[in-house]
């Protein structure tokens, strides 16, 4: 009975696609064209006619709206036009969850989840507000020089490090793992740009405790993936990547302004993670490989803790390059290079990589992956999660 109430195993990711990933401002194409390109590649990968995509789901106020996309692509019947509210990449897995809901509800057959960013054409995230006034919630931070995402989040991770004795080397291990994995990934913007511990230690400070290499890139590009029913996916050319669970969440009053969330030193996964695991029927011990959204390394640190991979006071032991390295580490992490070193496609590239790990086609493949997990958007509201699998255990 309970099985009937969950999404577990009922849908699959049938196709993935992305454009070339560029450094910010370097795309020769406008953002809308990048999105069209990524969607067409995902449809080709899935082996479907792009006109048969009937649902569109995105997040973070993506500028490329489904009605325009549907008109441009000749969508026969637009059945689902959907956006996850909230900023940052917190909606990355949440948009997949919405796509799944549309398929299970019978609204849609093939929902594309997409994200496009051309930060040369539009603005960058890492700059402060340039307006002469800071109204409302911004008034309590911007006049004091607290304006960028790095500055907002450094305050939370500093408190976590104070409460739990986490050391700078724990943050460094996350960055080194992403850059190491990117050296194997020709798609990665940082491919060919290896990072050493010494380079990290001597890199300039952005805002303590974040060095340059603790911060995500800003990039141009687009990514898209196709969600459909498990039955349809089995008739398509790619190995189905089944979804065990996907959900969004936000803990009690996390969006309280002026840094007043009651629980402060958190990535905001404390209520979501237990729901995610319960729905999937797996625990952290069964996760073979993890893609954890890096806006900043400190967010990854708290995400890993809040998903039960280690005790909050145990991060200095777990967080080593060896433990995070594919293929043989204890917890292979961000195996494409992720937001830090593959591309900041707002975390959708992490979903692609999680799917590749299930297919067996990652450039840093972990052997015999069954359970592959994504955590999206630490420290924003809402955040979201996704657990994928090659085998659902069903007969």
């Amino acid at each position, binding site marked *: 009975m309970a099985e009937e109430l969950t999404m577990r195993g009922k849908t699959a990711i049938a196709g993935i696609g992305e454009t070339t990933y560029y450094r910010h401002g370097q795309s020769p194409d406008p953002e809308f064209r990048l999105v069209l390109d990524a969607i067409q590649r995902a449809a080709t990968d899935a082996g479907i006619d792009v006109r048969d995509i009937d649902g569109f789901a995105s997040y973070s106020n993506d500028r490329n709206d489904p009605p325009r996309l549907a008109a441009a692509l000749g969508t026969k019947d637009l059945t689902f036009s959907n956006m996850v509210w909230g900023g940052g990449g917190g909606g990355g897995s949440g948009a997949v969850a919405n796509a799944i809901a549309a398929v299970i509800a019978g609204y849609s057959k093939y929902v594309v989840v997409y994200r496009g960013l051309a930060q040369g054409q539009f603005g960058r995230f*890492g*700059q*402060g*507000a*340039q*307006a*002469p*006034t*800071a*109204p*409302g*919630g*911004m*008034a*309590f*931070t*911007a*006049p*004091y*020089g*607290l*304006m*960028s995402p*790095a*500055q907002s989040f*450094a*305050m*939370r991770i*500093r*408190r976590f490090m*104070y409460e739990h004795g986490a050391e700078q080397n724990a943050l460094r291990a996350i960055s080194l793992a992403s850059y190491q994995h990117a050296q194997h990934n020709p798609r990665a913007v940082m491919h060919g740009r290896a990072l050493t511990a010494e380079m990290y230690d001597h890199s*300039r*400070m*952005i*805002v*303590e405790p974040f060095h340059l290499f603790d911060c995500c890139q800003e990039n141009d590009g687009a990514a898209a993936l196709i969600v459909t029913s498990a039955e349809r996916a089995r008739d398509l050319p790619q190995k189905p990547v089944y979804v065990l669970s996907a959900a969004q969440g936000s803990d009690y*009053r996390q969006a*309280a*302004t*002026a*840094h*007043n969330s009651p629980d*402060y030193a958190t990535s905001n996964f404390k209520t979501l993670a237990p729901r995610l695991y319960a729905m999937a029927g797996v625990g952290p011990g069964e996760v073979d490989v993890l893609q954890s959204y890096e806006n900043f390394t400190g967010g990854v640190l708290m995400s890993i803790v809040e998903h039960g991979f280690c005790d909050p006071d145990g991060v200095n032991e777990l967080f080593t390059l060896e433990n995070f390295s594919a293929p043989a580490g204890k917890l292979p992490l961000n195996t494409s290079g992720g937001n830090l070193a593959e591309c900041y496609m707002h975390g959708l590239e992490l979903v692609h990589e999680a799917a590749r790990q299930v297919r067996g086609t990652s450039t840093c493949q972990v052997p015999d992956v069954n359970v592959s997990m994504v955590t999206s958007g630490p420290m924003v509201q809402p955040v979201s999660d996704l657990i994928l699998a090659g085998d659902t255990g069903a007969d």
Partner: protein
Amino acid sequence: MAVDARSYLPEGLPQPTAAVDGLGAEFWEAANRHELVVQRCNDCSEFQWGPEWICHQCHSYNLGYTGVSGRGRIFSWERVWHPVHPALKDGTPYLVVLVELPDAGNVRMVGNLLGEPTQDVVIGAEVEAVFEDHGEGDEAYALVQWRTLD
């Protein structure tokens, strides 16, 4: 509470204003008078910060602003090195602190920690509010900064 005529950060950063719907105006008006206030529910007495139109605890719309001592404790901090605004181009490093107010239900406020920007910052250290005046006439506003107590 003290007043400091000097500006901690270079001039040219955004001026704080109430939200477009007016929320928060009382705080900035009080700061201009060098009074530190936070929102408090007139029905259940819960402190609330930042401001909202409803009390998160009892859902009353009968909220007011109440004066607080201006004594606080450093809850977290950061030293900023990379400028993200043109006005800060030659203004780094600087310190931003998150201060909790024990006499206001431990609500928190963001401000700068006055003094040497490379000083050691201690979480839990006692601080007090200092008003920093900017602008003149209709453009006048005051920021709430923080100074460590010996």
